[in-house]
């Protein structure tokens, strides 16, 4: 295994609880994001298991509707606002400065603030369960008038404030990412030599910057309606119930790209490394990503086709158009694999899982773009199937690809490959078993968000199957947790570059020193470490760096003094 790094002058880590609580180091903050997000992933997952347990058979067995409605509302809210969006921001936090050769993010203290708002918001949201009326229960979409004071309790107010906090955290993070990416790239790294992960974080940050404030305005208006006698969304006094949906979805549609673009970035880093070829069509990728971001602002009302208040052909057309750049990405990923030399390490396996299941999610989403078909499948389990294929089959698999890929860089130790593959198989089987039957359930008429269904409807078997699948997903977390636990203390030492990576994070130690790099290799393509390994240039310092690295990988002397 070739190493291509320099030995750092300073020790790698300050440790201890105080350090973790007060750090402004993007790497530690990134890890904090990951840990916090995974905690909410497990909480959200338990809520999902509760939901599936109730739905396994007809009849109310465990959770009456009043509780059930809270379960699925909080499941989605935790998963979307406290797991998916933040964990991808966490990966961005960890990887972006390293990948562009910067010592940290542009505003390290704001970075820390962004993080710490999240556990606070999560706790705030969760305390809804302790209130008299229970937690928010109008779905994560919180449609008015159901979300108005007449129909809900303080749990909804807590939810509103929590989401505003999370949105603020996101916006501050986006500002940080954009300034970092525009202003702090190492010399030689032009925009078109940035890793695709950085591009996806850039586009994602633009989406966050432009869309999240609109959600904040919607939430504030709802809060005013609920608590200060406002009449924005109250039809009885001249307000407009559909107004909420328009403002909400104006954010929440771009939000779904916020939830998937960085995961696509991770996949776009992993596939080339484990195929030993560059990403096919780098520029096409960049334009496709930008196209998805831009088009993403034009489709929000496709969530509202059945309201009777939407200009249907426009939104249908724009929704169809988004399929095109998405397809471009899909084909470019596959072309990256073609004529490569694939090594089936766990990161690659998860990335392949992403590609194959996001395909399903993209295809079943296209059905909803067909407005008359949407009249049949909207608000049924078909949509539940779609969203879980893109979010779980897509984003979550991308997240785990990132975990297995960067864990060695973050900790200096490898995760166990065997356990990783066990996790993958269980998760892959579980996801398909849980969500594929939901297509059929949706087609035959099972609506979303129902605590119970009649035995006469004929939905029993598929529901039971989905529940079994969900517990298999739950089981898949056990080898993962065990893997992390044992690898942290006794995983194989990773070295600087265990995967023969392409991008700059592999040109420093694992874990990197606080300031990231002593020296950087010359940057003349989107794969600077690959260039260093395979075609170092005599005129630059590359040859010397490469020689140093292979001659004395363990030497701890100060670098840079010759």
């Amino acid at each position, binding site marked *: 295994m070739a190493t291509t790094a320099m030995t750092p002058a300073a020790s790698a880590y300050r440790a201890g609880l105080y350090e973790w609580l007060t750090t402004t180091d993007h790497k530690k903050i990134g890890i904090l994001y990951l840990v916090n997000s995974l905690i909410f992933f497990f909480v959200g997952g338990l809520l999902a298991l509760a939901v599936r347990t109730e739905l396994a058979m007809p009849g109310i067995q465990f959770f009456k509707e009043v509780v059930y409605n809270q379960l699925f509302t909080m499941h989605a809210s935790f998963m979307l606002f406290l797991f998916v969006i933040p964990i991808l921001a966490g990966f961005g936090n960890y990887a972006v400065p390293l990948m562009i050769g910067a010592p940290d993010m542009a505003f390290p203290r704001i970075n820390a603030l962004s993080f710490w708002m999240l556990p606070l918001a999560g706790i705030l949201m969760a305390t809804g369960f302790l209130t008299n009326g229970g937690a928010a229960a109008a779905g994560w979409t919180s449609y008015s008038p159901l979300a108005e004071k007449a129909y809900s309790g303080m749990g909804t107010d807590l939810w509103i404030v929590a989401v505003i906090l999370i949105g603020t955290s996101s916006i501050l993070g986006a500002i940080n990412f954009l300034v970092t990416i525009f202003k702090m790239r190492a010399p030689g790294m032009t925009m078109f030599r940035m890793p695709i992960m950085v591009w996806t974080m850039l586009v994602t940050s633009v989406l966050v910057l432009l869309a999240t404030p609109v959600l904040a305005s919607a939430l504030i208006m709802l809060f005013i309606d609920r608590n200060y006698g406002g009449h924005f969304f109250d039809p009885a006094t001249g307000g407009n119930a559909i107004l909420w949906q328009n403002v909400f979805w104006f954010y929440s549609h771009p939000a779904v790209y916020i939830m998937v673009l960085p995961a696509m970035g991770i996949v776009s880093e992993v596939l080339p490394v484990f195929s030993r070829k560059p990403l096919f069509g*780098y520029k096409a990728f960049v334009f496709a990503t930008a196209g998805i971001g831009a088009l993403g602002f034009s489709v929000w009302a496709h969530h509202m086709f059945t309201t009777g208040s939407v200009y249907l052909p426009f939104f249908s057309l724009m929704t169809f158009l988004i399929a095109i750049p998405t397809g471009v990405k899909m084909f470019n990923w596959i072309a990256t694999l073609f004529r490569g030399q694939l090594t*089936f390490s766990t990161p690659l396996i998860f990335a392949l899982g992403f590609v194959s299941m996001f395909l399903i999610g993209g295809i079943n989403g296209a059905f909803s773009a067909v407005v008359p078909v949407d009249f049949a499948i909207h608000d049924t389990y078909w949509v539940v199937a779609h969203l879980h294929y893109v979010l779980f089959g897509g984003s979550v698999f991308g997240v785990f690809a990132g975990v297995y890929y960067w864990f060695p860089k973050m900790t200096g130790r490898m995760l166990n490959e065997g356990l990783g593959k066990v996790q993958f198989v269980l998760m892959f089987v579980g996801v398909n078993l849980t969500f594929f039957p939901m297509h059929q359930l949706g*087609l035959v008429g099972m609506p979303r968000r129902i605590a119970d269904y009649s035995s006469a409807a004929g939905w029993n078997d598929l529901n039971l199957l989905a529940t079994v699948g969900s517990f298999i997903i739950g089981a898949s977390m056990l080898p993962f947790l065990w893997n992390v636990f044992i690898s942290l203390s006794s995983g194989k030492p990773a070295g600087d570059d265990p995967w023969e990576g392409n991008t700059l994070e592999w040109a420093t130690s694992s874990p990197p020193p606080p300031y990231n790099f002593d020296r950087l290799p010359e940057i003349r393509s989107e794969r600077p470490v690959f260039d260093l390994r395979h075609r170092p240039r005599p005129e630059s310092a590359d040859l010397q760096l490469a020689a140093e690295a292979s001659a004395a990988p363990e030497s701890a002397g100060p670098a840079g003094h010759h």
Partner: protein
Amino acid sequence: MSNARIRLPRFVPLGLAVVALLVAGCTPQAVTRQGAEIQSLYNIVFGVAAVIFVFVEALIVYAVLRYRRKPGDTALPVQTHGNNLLEVVWTVIPTAIVAVLFVLSWQTLNSVDSVSVQTDVRIRAVAQRFQWSFEYLAEDGQQVVFKQITPEMYVPVGQTVKLTLFSPDVIHAFYVPQFLFKRDVVPGKENVFDFTVDQPGVYRGQCAELCGVAHDAMQFTVHAVSRDEYQAWLKQQVEGAKATPAPSAAGSPAASAAPGTTPAPPAAGGPTIDVSAAQIAFEQTELSAPANTPFTLKFTNNDAGVPHNVLIHQGADAASATFFDGEIFSGVDTRLYPVPAMQPGTYAFTCKVHPNMVGTLTVK
């Protein structure tokens, strides 16, 4: 065989794909003109989707199997960065497919969504928390000829029905799976759509927009009968409404399938007090019960297919907090509610599903 364990034997992904397609495909058989058009469109989209899915997944599987790194592979593979022609090809072809699907979709939409001037039957569906009722309207589309409070809508086969949707509270959705159609019921706005049922039968429907704690119970049925049967039925309902003060719902079949409920808990003992509900009202609005001892409230729900309960408040004000919340169940049925001991006083009781149903419980 290479060193890397192959993920799956070759035929398994293919076999799974076939099974998946078989399972994924089937819509219910459409029973309306509009539904039949939607079903045809769905089949076309499904066909295209299936071809794309099989093709692309096959590419992935092929790449994964064919391009595994073998022990002899030390030199790098060819470092292809891209191919502009391919980019053009796999941009243009999906664009063409998308364009075709969009045009087909728009044509079907225009046909399905058209609201005709000439309609034969006009009905207003009222969706409120948590039940459906149906008002049959006269020629002018305004005057209510007959209001059906049980959630069953009768329509004639082969005639255009104009359905207006009204909600006094939150957003609901009118959804009949076998129509392959739904439309939101939005407070403050009356959505309208037409449908024509092709085949006689009984079709279940359900609210498809989360509306609160009994959203899953908000079910209804559509009875599509011949024109003559429909006329006769309507005439009978109108005359029945004129003859008796409150038409009984006992004649109509309890067609809506209530969600499975657990059996009522055993009675608390003590005296039994009877109360019943019919026509979305309590039939006894003044009840009395003994103080300081648990008692049983025997509640009979006479509204077929309509959910009710008895909720006793902590004070005489119907807006005060809950003291006892009985199980919600659909009629026609009886439950025994075990009410804990109460202090002397006057308490309001309401139905949680229909808060307009109010009565007074005097405890002494």
